[in-house]
Structures are given as structure tokens and as C-alpha cells.
């Protein structure tokens, strides 16, 4: 049974959906030329450019990325965004409500807050602070405040919020204070730094574990694959939180803050690696059967060359997507552990540590501002999810 042959003369590999018609002659000039130009741009675009164009179309993903950029800016310049030392406590200033910023002073834009007067509550005899409407303390943006070290070594003293004619530690409490009288806003800034960086370090560890084990499993197949797969399945069917709690509780009480930080990071990274390993293994298995791999083998490339120069570049974008999507779980785990008191310990500050203050419901009802860090968690997780989704869709829209 004979088939007709219609030769296809497009010789380049086209991105999906766009065919290059070799004939352009008989078309009306202008319109066709611009369209042809666009097609040619697409045809010569690199893989990354294509990804970027697709990613850009995803409004949510772009939005998420911008939000994350803002968060990381906060993290790097936490000292600038805060205005007092986050550990400076004053028991008498505990659980103060957030101060209202008054933006206009007699018609002109001059933000200020009221000073706080310490008085004794006649009923409880405790010292309480109430706004003193006779004294206005102006707020300056980018004003001078307490000194700190920018990026760890550049001395500076400018803060986003600063007050004139008074000490910030006595007069500015934009988000209120916690049970120990520490300024909640400054603590939030520093907590952002810790929580966002733990996410990165942890996911890096998970990535290494996942890529190595998943890669070995997928590339070599056979018995190794079975063993590693069983291990992953077992780990996935165990409730993880009791295990982390156990591991975290095992961290000795006398370790330094930094040691605890790293211990927690390692513990948390032991969760996410299974998912990454699964993705990597899947990619290796499907790539092993691709013709271009066989072609490389036939040409005589060494195994490592095949892996690193041929296979890896074709799925690196998927790995990036999977990694980004693994970060939210890590942030949530750190927050949960610290919330329970099993994670980071004071004086370390993270969102989870901040939320520990909110454990007591009675206190929470009186001081609802203690819940504000939860919005930070939710927004960060959402942003990572959107960005990760966007990257994943851009990497392979047919996935």
C-alpha cells in the first residue's frame, strides 16, 4: 500500500506549534515580513529565552517573584528596615498595641506618633504606657537611628523609620510589642532574614541529596534503583512530624545558636529530598531512552560527559521548578518546629519563634497583633508556589 510523499523542507528543529514555511515569495509584503521576523526570532531563541518569554506571561508568577525579591531585600537589609535591636526587652513595655501613625500634622505631610507616657494602672498597679497626646514625635524616613553594620561590615546608622528628638527604643512601636516588651516590627524584620535564609540553605541540601540519589537511581536503574525507590517509599509513608520532633528534640540544649540553626536546617532538608529525587529519577529514566543520548554514546562520549553535557541541561529547568516548589514546605516545617519550641531557640528569631508568642489563646485575644508574622509566612509560601508554578509551566508547558 503506497503512500504519497510530501516532502517537508523545514530542516531546523522548530519550537512546538510554529512551522517555517519556506515559501515567502507570493505573500503580501509588509504583514508577512513582520510575522516572519517574529517566527525567526522564536526559531533562534535559546531555551532560556523561550522560558523567560513564557514565564513573563504568567502574571501570578511574576507577581510572586517580585514579592520574593522584596522579602529577600528585607532579609539582607533587615537592620535598615528595623529600627531597634530586636532582642532589647523591657518587661514593663510588654504587649503594647501597635502605634497609630498620624500622617498629617496641621495640613502638611509630616508623619508623627504620640509619645508614650508611663503611668500606673490604678487597678493592677502595673506600669502601663498610654499615648501622650501633648507630645508629638515626628517620624523621619531614612533618618538616623541606632548604629549597625550593613551587610555585616559597613558601619551605618540610617534606618527606614527613625524618630526625631527621642530614642526609637522608647517611642516607636509600629507593630506593638511582645510579652517581653520587644519591638515586634524590628523582630519581624530579623525573623524574615532567618526564615528566608533557612529555606535556601535547607533546599540546597535537599537538592544535593535528591539529585545524587535520584540521579543514581534513574541512571543506573536495576537493583540500585529498586533499593533507593523502596527507601523513598518508606520515608514517604511515615508521618514526618513526629520524626522531626524527635530529631529536633534530640538537639542538645547547650548547643550555640548557630549550631542549632544548622542542625535544624539539616533536619528539615531531610524531608524535601524525596520529592526532588523522584523528579530527577523520572527525568533520567525518560532521558535515557532519548535518541540523542544513544547518539552521544555511539559517538563515543564518556558517561560523565553524556550526563553532564547532554542530559542535565535538558532537565535543569525542571529541577529549578521542583526546587522552588520545595521551599514552601521547608519554610512551613521550620515555622512549625520553632512554634513548638523544638526548632530555633532564643535569641534566634524566626517567624516560628515569633508565633510562639501567639500560642496562648487568652493572650492572643488581647494582643491580636502577635499573629501578624503568620501573614508573612502565608505570603512567602504563596509567592514561592506561584513562582515555582510559573517556572514549571515555562519549562515544559505540556507537563
Amino acid at each position, binding site marked *: 500500500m503506497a503512500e*504519497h*510523499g510530501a*516532502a*517537508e523542507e523545514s530542516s531546523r528543529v522548530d519550537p512546538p*506549534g510554529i*512551522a517555517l514555511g*519556506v*515559501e515567502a515569495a*507570493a505573500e503580501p509584503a509588509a504583514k508577512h515580513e513582520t*510575522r516572519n521576523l517574529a517566527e525567526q526570532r522564536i526559531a533562534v531563541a535559546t531555551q532560556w529565552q523561550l522560558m523567560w518569554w513564557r514565564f513573563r506571561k504568567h502574571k501570578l508568577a511574576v507577581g510572586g517573584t517580585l514579592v520574593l525579591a522584596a522579602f529577600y531585600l528585607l532579609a539582607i537589609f533587615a537592620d535598615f528596615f528595623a529600627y531597634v535591636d530586636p532582642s532589647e526587652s523591657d518587661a514593663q513595655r510588654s504587649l503594647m498595641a501597635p502605634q497609630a501613625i498620624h500622617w498629617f500634622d496641621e495640613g502638611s505631610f509630616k508623619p508623627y506618633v504620640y509619645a508614650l507616657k508611663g503611668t500606673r494602672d490604678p487597678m493592677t498597679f502595673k506600669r502601663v504606657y498610654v499615648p501622650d497626646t501633648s507630645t508629638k514625635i515626628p517620624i523621619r524616613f531614612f533618618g538616623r537611628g541606632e548604629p549597625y553594620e550593613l551587610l555585616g561590615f559597613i558601619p551605618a546608622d540610617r534606618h527606614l523609620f527613625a524618630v526625631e528628638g527621642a530614642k526609637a527604643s522608647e517611642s516607636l512601636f509600629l507593630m506593638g510589642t511582645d510579652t517581653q516588651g520587644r519591638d515586634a516590627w524590628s523582630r519581624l524584620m530579623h525573623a524574615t532574614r532567618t526564615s528566608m535564609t533557612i529555606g535556601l540553605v535547607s533546599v540546597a541540601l535537599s537538592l544535593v541529596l535528591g539529585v545524587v540519589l535520584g540521579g543514581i537511581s534513574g541512571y543506573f536503574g536495576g537493583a540500585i534503583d529498586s533499593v533507593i525507590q523502596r527507601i523513598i517509599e518508606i520515608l514517604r509513608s511515615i508521618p514526618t512530624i513526629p520524626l522531626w520532633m524527635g530529631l529536633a528534640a534530640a538537639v542538645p540544649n547547650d548547643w550555640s545558636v548557630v549550631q542549632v540553626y544548622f542542625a535544624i536546617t539539616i533536619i528539615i532538608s531531610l524531608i524535601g529530598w524525596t520529592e526532588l529525587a523522584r523528579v530527577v529519577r523520572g527525568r533520567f529514566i525518560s532521558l535515557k531512552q532519548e535518541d540523542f543520548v544513544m547518539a552521544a554514546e555511539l559517538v563515543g562520549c564518556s558517561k560523565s560527559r553524556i550526563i553532564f553535557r547532554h542530559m542535565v541541561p535538558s532537565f535543569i529547568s525542571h529541577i529549578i521548578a521542583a526546587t522552588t516548589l520545595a521551599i514552601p514546605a521547608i519554610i512551613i516545617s521550620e515555622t512549625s518546629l520553632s512554634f513548638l519550641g523544638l526548632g530555633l531557640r532564643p535569641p534566634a528569631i524566626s517567624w516560628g519563634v515569633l508565633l510562639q508568642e501567639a500560642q496562648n489563646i487568652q493572650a492572643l485575644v488581647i494582643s491580636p497583633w502577635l499573629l501578624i508574622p503568620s501573614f508573612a509566612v502565608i505570603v512567602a509560601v504563596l509567592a514561592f508556589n506561584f513562582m515555582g508554578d510559573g517556572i514549571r509551566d515555562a519549562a515544559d508547558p505540556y507537563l
Partner: protein
Amino acid sequence: MQNAKKPLLSVRNLHTSFFQDEGTTKAVDGASFDVLPGKTLGIVGESGCGKSVTAQSILRIVDHPGRIVEGKIVLTREDGSEIDLVKLKPNSREMRSIRGGDIGLIFQEPMTSFSPVHTVGAQLIEAVLLHNAVGKKEARRRGIEALRSVGIPKPERRIDEYSFELSGGLRQRAMIAVALSCDPRLLIADEPTTALDVTTQAQILDLLRKIQQERGMAIMLITHNLGVVAEMADDVVVMYLGRVVEQGKVDDIFHDPKHPYTKALLQSIPSIESVPRVKLPTISGSIPHPFNRPTGCPFHPRCASFMSGRCDNAEPVLAPVGDGRKASCFLYQ
């Protein structure tokens, strides 16, 4: 003997387009043809010429974002009355009774045309129950009979098996059984043999011919394989880019093609009689991108008989070029 029997199905000026964000694709761009009762109409063309979409349009199962924009599809019912299928709502009771009842459909890929988690019998019996007012037991009996009539051995056992338990040829037969279970007057076969090996292909074609003779059923055979057309069809319609470019009796088309596209197609078939050691002729160029349709005659960029100024300026219409034949080409207009 009447010269022209009343057509069973009459498609006139069918336009079906897909509306996507990136642009509108005119999958079927003005197709017109008739299917005569008891006869086989072959629809030929390259992939992407709109043959399958035409079949889907007839059955009103065009997938979103596609829809029929214009045209008439007139079906003559058993009692002689006519109904325009375009005017029916796709999910209406009437259309659904026609779909599967008056018109049956078989697909190219028998494996994926059956649900993997339902038995073949379940899907067969469902079809019977939909179009016949019978009970389950009777439906099952008819199902077994249908399987037997397409040549499946031990149908009482096979009816309870899953599609993955049958071989490729048996699966295709089962699919034919489902399509035939309600005794349709028209069977649309969309590339029924493309996924089969040559021997099975021959068997299936024999089966179709036998059934046609037994029941007087019309067949609309969609394929890109000219050999199958030559063997099975009585009339042929050649499509290109959603349009009918030529139509006529099978012998006329094969021995005396009028349209340049048909000529080029036929020339590119390897044949025992062709001159040895000469390069096989191909059609120059390639199918234009759906968003990039040529103005004027859709084939002119690749046409050996291209007439500048005429073929790129206006669109030819399907006009008679001889006894019962039509072609859409300026060579004859």
C-alpha cells in the same frame, strides 16, 4: 435507473474554525460533498487538511475551542425527512440519537478508543441501550451478536474482557462492533487502518466491505492512504487546507486527475510501473502554518501550474469539470 440517488448526507459550505488566544484556525474552510446511501466515499488529504474535523463536525463533537461557523449538513432520515445537523444543539436528545444511532464512528487508535477501566462489553452494551429500548439481557445478547458479526471468536467470553486484553486487530473489530451495534446507515471511519499492520489492514477492509454489502450501509472513509481509497471507495473527495479541491468517481480521479494537487499526490506514489532510478517526485514546499494561510488559492505556493496574478488574487470555487466531477482550480474556470 435513476442517475442521482438522493444523498444520505449532504454537506454544503461547511466552515469550522478553532478560536484560540494565538489566532483563529480555519480547520474546514468551505467543504461541500455528498454521501450516497450504500456507497463508500473516500476523503483523502495530508495530515492537517481538515478531514477529521469534518467528521467531527458532522457528528457535532468538535472539541472546544472549535465550532461550526457556517454551513449545512443535511441528513436524510429513514423516513425520508431531512434534518440539518448544524441547527441541532450538540447535546440535544435528537442529535444524540443520531450520533451512534444513524451515524457511527470508528477511530484510528483502537487502544485508546476504549476506556481502560471498563470492559469492552460495558461500552458495547451501553451503546445498545442508548439507542434501543431493550433490557439489559437483550442488550447483552445483541452485544455478543455484534462481536460475532465482526468476526471475533468466542464473543461470549470476549465481551467481559478489557481492551488491553485484546490484540490490535481484535480491538479494531470490537470498535467496529460498537459502531455497528445500532445499525447505523452511515459509518464514518477515520483512518481505521493506519495503526494496523498490513495483513490486519486487509482483514479489516474486507470486513467493512462485507458489512456494507450485508446492510446497505454507506461508509465515509477518511484516510491519507491512496491505496486504501483505490480499493474501497466509490467516490473520492480530495481535501487541502480545509477545502475540497477535487471530487469525483474513484476511477476518474485516479486515471484522470484534474486538480494539480491530486496530480502531484498521485505522481508521488511509488509504483511498479514507474521509471527506475529516477528520484521520486514530491510536492515542493510544505503545508503552511494555520495562522499563515496563503491568499487566493490555498495551494498556489506549491502548485506546478501556478498562474501569477490569478491564483494568488482570488479564490477558486468548486465547479463542475466534467461528468459528475468537480474541481476547484482556475485552470478550469
